């Protein structure tokens, strides 16, 4: 990132190839269409490029990327809901994803698993499990306190535990868990 700020061409390509797929997956998880995720990814990188001077090399880099990505996503959905009356709200989209079989729901088991959770709980678990961010980093990316993130993770785990226990044998057999 420091090399990117210094104007190194190779650093840009390396950074886009390294962080791009993670951000794309972050958008795919919340978007009904692949084209939306592609658009959001491009818009995020343009925004990152415009405000790259706001990253300080002494700070963790992933929260910085995800904080901008979250902002782009929120702006996108607000703009979309203003411009088209047919656009469905995020929760509704999530419900659709939840009802689709795994193959149709972007083929990602994690999203099917997280579908019963609230949007904020899903977002935090995605950052922790997909991007591998720590509690502190998730707190920075979501502009929350670490305590608040811990509470959301705790509630998410409780909901997942309850859901998996209720589904017990079915989920266990499909995922190879007892």
């Amino acid at each position, binding site marked *: 990132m420091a090399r990117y700020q210094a*104007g190194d061409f190779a650093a840009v390509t390396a950074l886009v190839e390294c962080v791009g797929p*993670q951000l794309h997956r972050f958008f795919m998880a919340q978007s009904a269409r692949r084209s939306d995720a592609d658009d959001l990814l*491009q818009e995020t990188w343009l925004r990152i490029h415009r405000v790259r001077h*706001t990253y300080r090399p002494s700070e963790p880099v992933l929260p910085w990327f995800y904080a901008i990505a979250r902002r782009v996503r929120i702006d996108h959905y607000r703009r979309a809901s203003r411009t088209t009356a047919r656009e469905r709200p995020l929760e509704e989209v999530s419900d659709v994803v939840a009802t689709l079989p795994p193959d149709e729901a972007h083929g990602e088991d*994690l999203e099917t698993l997280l579908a019963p959770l609230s949007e904020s709980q899903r977002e935090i678990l995605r950052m922790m499990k997909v991007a591998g961010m720590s509690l502190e980093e998730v707190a*920075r990316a979501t502009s929350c*306190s670490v305590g608040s993130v811990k509470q959301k993770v705790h509630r998410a785990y409780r909901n997942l535990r309850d859901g998996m226990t209720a589904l017990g044998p079915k989920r266990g057999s499909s995922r190879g868990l007892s």
Partner: protein
Amino acid sequence: MTDEDVDKVLQKTSGAASQVDPALLKRIADSLNSSLRPVRPLPPTWAPTAGLALICAAVAVTAAARTGFYGFEKLGLWERVLIFSTLAILVWTSGKEFVSQLIPGSRQPLSVGSILTIGSAALLGVFSLVFRDYRTDHFISAGIACLRTGLLLAIPAACMSWLLLRRGFAVNPVAAGLAGGALAGLSGVTMLELHCPNFQALHVLVWHTAVVPVSAAAGALVGWALHKHSSAK
């Protein structure tokens, strides 16, 4: 089922490869490279925070110098220490929060709303300790004059603060406006404490303290309007 079991399932399912099109990534990288030039990173948080504190102090002292330090002269030594040290702490905290709001991915141990609530409560606590005159002469007229003065003074403080932090990027413009407005409001309160000779407890508790939340609300409104304007473009 335990948390460890849930964790194992999450770890197992989160490993799926992303299906992002390599051509898309290449297009993005090429587009960024076409306008790439070196940039200077923002300084550490303490530097702009100190700048904001200086702006607030300078605006308050300059305004008080023009209108007179009647309030300051009337206060006792310990009253001065108590009021102005509290204001200094609040200015530093709000300034730091404002800076954090304009740097994506910054640490935010407390929300802006919490800082605003705690700050207003701290001011109310200190004012209720210092001011014990419970008369209410000219409560409304004198109060509105002080509120107006404090808010008018918050405008230059807010503009100068924004100039200092213009290179920042607010991921949450409303929260950034709230923090900036609170900071500018504190500049207004500092000026009122230096200038206002009206030591009636209710006057100070209601009208002086009100400058902070009103200014913060105005800041949030400006942040919202600016964001709406920029996203409409």
